[in-house]
């Protein structure tokens, strides 16, 4: 049977992807350019027995998502940069309390309210380091409406599997543009549900890690499994502790569960286009990668061996592969709609192995292929 198709906005695709993943709770506060995610969730969630709530502000929205998740629901909130700024304290809480949830950030410029209807990519470091303290981060950056659907599903899977907040970053351009989408059949995309505890309720400890990279199962709060939840450093039983060895173990485990080689191999996802024989790589993510692909095709037509490396998972960053490419090519060109963020991550990894040049724009207009082509020609 032919698949169901529709011309959908990126934000609509996101909401439908969340429902496909089994999301049953949305708590949010409307903000351009993400509002359509909330609008569609308010229509779709009641159909699947879910709950939609518009909270009084961004902070409360994040709190509602953490609370609902603790009861066992897959939960979502959607916002833009200014909203993520407000949510940061609670994102940290979700990290340390190991509470799965998905945060959509449809990026616009900044700081502060910036330009609400213009695109930006200036929240990529915020997604990594926005909340204080040492912590792991998972963030994905889809570049098309179809991929917003599938990456939203994957974000839920990663949140549940690694028991932590996961951010989906895309910008106003893909959020508001419309493309043809083929709806995956149920079962076509993997959907991971939360692991349930196998011990008896009286033996349950919410942070009872079996190894230094383990993700212990999370019971549903309010069930017969009773446990304590706090933002303080805690012992295996969930109660606060200041015992140095326990605090150290937990801090390191919560990072290692995402950054150990096995987890990285599972979480990292990249697309490579004509990289094998490339002399110059354009490293681009999100909507900017679409300009980069156009540029690669133009450059190839002129005989310049260009390739596109597109991290779909931004955090953890694909360090190993980028280091390899840095040794292979003469130069990496990194276009991003900010004044230089991911370029410093790449600089840290490739060091002096190849030349590195950015293309930056913060005027609310997209980086066009011509700007990338000009920079490639200048650098090689």
């Amino acid at each position: 049977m032919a698949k169901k198709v529709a011309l959908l906005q990126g934000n609509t695709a996101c909401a439908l992807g969340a429902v496909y993943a089994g999301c049953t709770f949305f708590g949010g506060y409307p903000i351009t350019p993400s509002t359509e995610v909330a609008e569609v969730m308010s229509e779709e969630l009641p159909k699947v027995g879910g709950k939609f709530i518009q909270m009084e502000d961004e902070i409360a929205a994040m709190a509602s998502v953490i609370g609902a998740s603790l009861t066992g629901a897959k939960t979502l909130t959607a916002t833009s940069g200014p909203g993520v700024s407000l949510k940061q304290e609670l994102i940290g809480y979700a990290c340390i309390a190991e509470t799965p949830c998905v945060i959509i950030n449809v990026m616009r410029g900044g700081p502060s309210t910036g330009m609400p209807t213009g695109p930006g990519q200036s929240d990529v470091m915020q997604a990594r380091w926005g909340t204080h303290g040492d912590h792991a981060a998972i963030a994905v950056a889809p570049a098309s409406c179809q991929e917003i659907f599938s990456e939203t599903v994957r974000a839920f899977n990663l949140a549940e599997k690694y028991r932590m907040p996961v951010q989906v970053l895309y910008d106003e351009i893909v959020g508001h543009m419309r493309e043809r989408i083929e709806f995956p059949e149920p079962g076509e995309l993997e959907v991971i549900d939360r692991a349930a505890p196998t011990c008896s309720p009286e033996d349950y400890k919410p942070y009872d890690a079996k190894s230094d990279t383990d993700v212990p199962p999370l019971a549903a709060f309010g069930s017969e499994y009773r446990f304590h939840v706090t933002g303080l450093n805690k012992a295996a039983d969930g109660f606060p502790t200041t015992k140095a060895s326990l605090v150290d173990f937990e801090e390191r485990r919560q990072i290692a569960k995402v950054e150990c080689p096995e987890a990285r191999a599972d979480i990292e996802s990249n697309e490579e286009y004509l990289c094998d024989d490339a002399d110059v790589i354009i490293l681009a993510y999100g909507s900017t990668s679409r300009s980069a692909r156009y540029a690669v095709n133009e450059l190839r037509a002129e005989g310049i061996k260009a390739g596109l490396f597109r991290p779909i998972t931004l955090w953890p960053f694909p360090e190993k592969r980028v280091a390899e490419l840095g040794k292979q090519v003469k130069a990496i060109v990194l276009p991003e709609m900010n004044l230089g963020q991911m370029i410093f991550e790449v600089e840290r990894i490739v060091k002096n192995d190849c030349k590195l040049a950015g293309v930056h724009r913060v005027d609310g207009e997209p980086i066009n292929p011509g700007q990338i082509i000009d920079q490639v020609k200048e650098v090689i």
Partner: protein
Amino acid sequence: MAERYEIRFSGAGGQGLITAGIILAEAASIVEGKHAVQSQSYGPEARGGASKSEVIIGDAPIDYPKATVVDACLAMTQEAADKYANGIKSGGMLLLDSDFAPNAPEGDFKVYYLPIMRLAKTEIGREIVANVIALGAMIAMTGVVSREAGEKAVLAKVPEAFVDLNKKAYALGFEKAAELLA
């Protein structure tokens, strides 16, 4: 390079030009099975202000979703014409509302005028269908999708009670533009 055909609809916010772009993209990608991307740009105002909607159509997946060199452009107001009737390729075309966008910017492209808002008011009796008249005209002038595909996409978008009204508006736009070209 894959072939791209780029169309820009521009006018005042609230005139339905983003909707016109969406309908064209649906005609191309859903009805005709081509590749299409529709995007838009607008200010913070809910009504008024210049707004634009762009549709890129091709036989292969569309990478860069915004216009590079515009094949065909519509401007419904002078402000939109001044702000958005640029980047039109040599030999391309520009359609202006003769009452509300009387002054064409200079350039090496063909300029056509139709009193789109006036036609909506006098021939159909409803200004709200001006965007559908404009869409019919743009499809006639560019041939980027068939007349039938465009009509099918228009009718799929409107409530039952407004089918006849929109059918009439679409046909009017298509035929008036075809007369201009003849």
